[in-house]
Structures are given as structure tokens and as C-alpha cells.
């Protein structure tokens, strides 16, 4: 019954108007989303009419529940998927104009950190980081100069010759950050970088990202780590069911959440009430 109703509604509802791209490109923006929608082949809307811009040197949190569209934004940014409508520009370059062949060259300008690290399992820490350089045609001298540097920055100097599965989760994520940053990309994307880590290790990773941000790199972090967002007091873009619902210069994880202590106390109180 419900299925038929849904079917009828879909048949009678007017086709959604093809959204027009509104507004002009934001000059100087690192990331420029204009009316971006993504409809997956399954029919799910991953993102609806998202418009925002990120400027050089910013540190941006992308927050929201799972399935809200954070990962869709990330995957759009690394051009793993194409938007259904709207336009995305990164560093002034329209992503739609990049052909499939040129994608690898585009990705070299991005550092990407994933929740599941995505390290090459049968290469040592050193070789994992070096691979990102070799891909861009970096010479052996480049590797010899840059890799130890970046490993020192991420605190991995002693683990040079370990394989990823000999490292803890936090260390693996450090390797992944080191690999993302070894080319000194202007933009670093992190999709749930602390999703698999305990709170203390997460702090370490966030500090690392913060340090990278301080060098002038734009950092976008998708996360649902509430404590982290609340403590860092950075720009927050909140996504809910595919729409951007909030964009604050210095925000907490949820709206009106700026007084962290109070809200935690309230939360604790509610929690206790529930128990009794």
C-alpha cells in the first residue's frame, strides 16, 4: 500500500527543476561549492543545493550525523564522484573541466586522510610516504630530503622501517597524515581522521592537523567528534540529510553549544535522569 502511494506520488510530482547555479564564483576561495547536489544512482540524495566557500588558511570542521553528506562532500572534492548539479571549484579550477586522465594530476594538489588510513599494507612507513612523492615523479633526492623531515614532524622517526600492521591505529593515522602532507599541498582533506581512534590519540592527530594548518595549508576535517570540535573553536559547517544547515565562524558541534561545560553538565544531568 505504502509502496503504491509512494509510486503514485513520484509519478504525479513534478520533476524537480534542474537547479541553476546561483551566484558568482567566490574570488580567491580554495573550495567553492555552488548549488551542488548529488543524487546517487540508488535515488538517494547525498547532497542538496550546497553552497559554501572555504578561504586559504582556514580550518573548517564539517559536522553531521553519519549519512548526512559529509563524505559525499569529501568524495566530490577528490573527484571520486561527480556532482549531479551545480559546480565545484578548487583553487579556482572547475572540477567539471578536469578529464578522467587529468584526475591524478589534480589529486596531487590535495592531501587526503581517511578514516581507515588507506596505507599500502606491504610497504614500510618510509616507503608509504615516499610513494606519494614518487607518484609525482619525485627523484630519489626528493625522497631522501623530504620524507625524514615529514616523519619527524609527525613523530614517526623511530618507526621508519615498520610495516603498517606493526603500528597502532594512531601511528597509522600519523603515517597517513604524513603522506598527505609530504607534497605540501595547499589543501588537506580529512574524512573522519579520528573515527577509529581513542580520544587521547585523536587529540594528537588533531594537533598535528592544526600544526599543518598553521603552515598556511587549508584544512577541512569531516568529523562527528563533538569534544574535538567544541574545543578547537574553528569554523563549523553542519550538514543534515544532505543540506547545509549551519555555517559558523567559530562554532560548537551543535548550534548554541558554545558553552561547552554547561552543555556537558546538562547532558550529564539528562543522562543521570534517564538512568534513575
Amino acid at each position, binding site marked *: 500500500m505504502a509502496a503504491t502511494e509512494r509510486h503514485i506520488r513520484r509519478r504525479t510530482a513534478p520533476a524537480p527543476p534542474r537547479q541553476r547555479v546561483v551566484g558568482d564564483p567566490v574570488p580567491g576561495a580554495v573550495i567553492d561549492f555552488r548549488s551542488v547536489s548529488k543524487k546517487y544512482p540508488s535515488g538517494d540524495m547525498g547532497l542538496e543545493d550546497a553552497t559554501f566557500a572555504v578561504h586559504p588558511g582556514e580550518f573548517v570542521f564539517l559536522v553531521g550525523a553519519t549519512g548526512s553528506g559529509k563524505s559525499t562532500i569529501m568524495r566530490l572534492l*577528490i573527484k*571520486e564522484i561527480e556532482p549531479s548539479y551545480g559546480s565545484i571549484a578548487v583553487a579556482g579550477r572547475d572540477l567539471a573541466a578536469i578529464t578522467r*586522465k587529468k584526475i*591524478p*594530476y*589534480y*589529486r*596531487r594538489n*590535495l592531501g*587526503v586522510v*581517511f578514516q581507515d588510513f*588507506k*596505507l*599500502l*599494507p*606491504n610497504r614500510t612507513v618510509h616507503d608509504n610516504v615516499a*610513494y*606519494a612523492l*614518487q*607518484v*609525482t615523479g619525485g*627523484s630519489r633526492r626528493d625522497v631522501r630530503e623530504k620524507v625524514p623531515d615529514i616523519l619527524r614532524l609527525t613523530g614517526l622517526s623511530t618507526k621508519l622501517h615498520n610495516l603498517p600492521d606493526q603500528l597502532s591505529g594512531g601511528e597509522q593515522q600519523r603515517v597517513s597524515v604524513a*603522506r598527505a602532507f609530504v607534497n605540501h599541498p595547499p589543501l588537506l582533506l580529512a574524512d573522519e581522521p579520528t573515527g577509529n581512534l581513542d580520544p587521547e590519540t585523536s587529540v594528537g592527530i588533531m594537533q598535528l592537523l592544526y600544526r599543518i594548518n598553521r603552515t598556511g595549508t587549508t584544512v577541512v576535517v569531516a568529523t562527528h567528534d563533538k569534544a574535538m570540535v567544541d574545543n578547537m573553536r574553528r569554523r563549523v559547517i553542519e550538514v543534515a540529510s544532505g543540506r547545509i544547515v549551519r555555517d559558523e565562524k567559530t562554532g560548537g558541534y551543535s548550534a548554541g553549544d558554545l558553552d561547552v561545560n554547561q552543555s556537558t553538565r546538562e547532558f550529564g544531568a539528562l543522562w543521570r535522569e534517564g538512568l534513575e
Partner: protein
Amino acid sequence: MRFGFFLRESLRALRRNAVPSFAAVATVLVTVLVLGVFIPVVQATTGAANEIREKVLVDVYLKSDASQADIERVRQKIATETPGVGRVEFISKEQAIKAEREAGRGEFYDLLGSNPLPDLLRVTPERPDDIVQVRDALAPLTPSGQRTVADSAIDEVKDRKENTDKILSATRVVKLTMGLLAGLLALASLLLVANTIRLSMYARRREVEVMKLVGATDWFIRWPFVIEGVIVGALGGITAILLLAVVKVSLVDPLADDFSLIAAPETMNFPLLVAVLLGAAVGVSALGSGLSLRRFLRV
């Protein structure tokens, strides 16, 4: 520098994935071995079948009173006017009886006192399958269904019909079967090698995905895999060919002196066989590696 890097990458991959790599080498080895044995066998068999088919012929018996001019006329007629004729051989009475004597049947003819054998033109068709055409030209069918002869000097045309039919159909079956078997074997080898490559590729699809996300171009990822395929194919192929060579020198060559079948004239010579097998092994595994990677490159 670039090539050195790719070579080092592929050697590293071979070392790290020792077991799948070994499986791939073994697959290529077995396949090349089987093909290396089977190709000469097929060729020898079809060669033998062809040799048997050569024995299909039409005998044109001449009348006993045919003059030398008659013989020459008939011979000309067969050689120039009849389509499908390959070779015409004249066997005189005297030659025929000599052959009979050599076969040990001389006494019977001695008893007769005279030579009863006719002069004979032995016609070999150009291709074995032309024999029906040749026979029909030399001994056309009358409307009443009887056979006449094309020239007054011809007494009878015999094509040893029964033998001919048997030889033609039997050799055709042999050739067809062998061809089919060879095709199936080649297909099986190809699928086997492709599947092995695919498996080892599937085990490393995550790695390929990561490489793409880091910004590696398709060919940057692909070259090490292709080189790996070349190495695997060459290792398997060379080992198999060495084994084949050992078997050839120690077993087949001594036998070949005694059995004409093994040294059938149409068998591929060994160096060519080696080149074909090695080329196929290296080519298939390199191509297979490069191509089966394609699916995983779509990130």
C-alpha cells in the same frame, strides 16, 4: 630512472606476494608444457593424415590394344583437359608385372605365360577432395546411370571407391578432432592464466585504489604490473621450454630415427616452437596483467 623504479616496484611485488606469484609461474609453466607437447602432436597427426590422403588416386586402365599414340593422347587429355588433376604417372605392362614379381607373386604370372596386366595411367588429384571431380570427368555417368569412358582407348576407370571414401572421412575426422582439441586447449590455457592473474590482482585491489587516491596515473600503476607479468611469463615459459628441450633430446630424438611419424615433415621445428611458446607466455601474462587491472583503476 623511471624504468628502474618500475622494475624495482615489480620485483618488490613479486617478493611480497611470493605464493600467488609462484602460483602464476606454475600455471604458465604447466600451460606452456602442455601446449609444447600438444602442438607437435597435432602437427604430426595432421601431417600423417595428409600423407594418407595423398594415397587417394584414380587408376585409368587402358585397352590392351591401345597404341603408343593412344596412350599419349589419353595422357595429354588427362593432364591438360581434366580439372583437378595433380599428377599423372604412366605405368606400363612391363613395369606393372615387375612390381608384381617384386611383391613375390611372379609365379602366377609365369604360369599364365603371358602378361595379362594392362597399361595404366595413375592419376593423383591436386587435392584429395578433388578425386570425385576427376573420376566424373574421366568416366562420365550416362543418363541411364552407367559409367562410360571419356576416351575410346580407356578400358576402365577405377577410383577404389571404398578405400577413397574411408580415407577421406577418417582423415577428416582426425583433422577436425585435433583442430578442436588444439582450440579448446589454447582457450583453457588462456582462461587459466587470466584467472590466476585476476586472483592475484584482486588481492591487491585495495593497493591500487590507494595509489589512485594518492594521485598516481593509470600507467604509473600499470607498468609495474605489466613488468611483473613479463617476468612471470618469462620464468614459467623458460622453465617449461627447458623441460621440453630435455624431453626432446633424451626421448623424442632417439625415437624419431625409428618412427617416421614423429619426424613427420610438417612438424614445426623446435626453435620456432620455442619462440612461439615463449612469446605467447610472456605476451599473455603481460597483457593479462595490464588488462585485468583496468577494472580496479576506475576510482
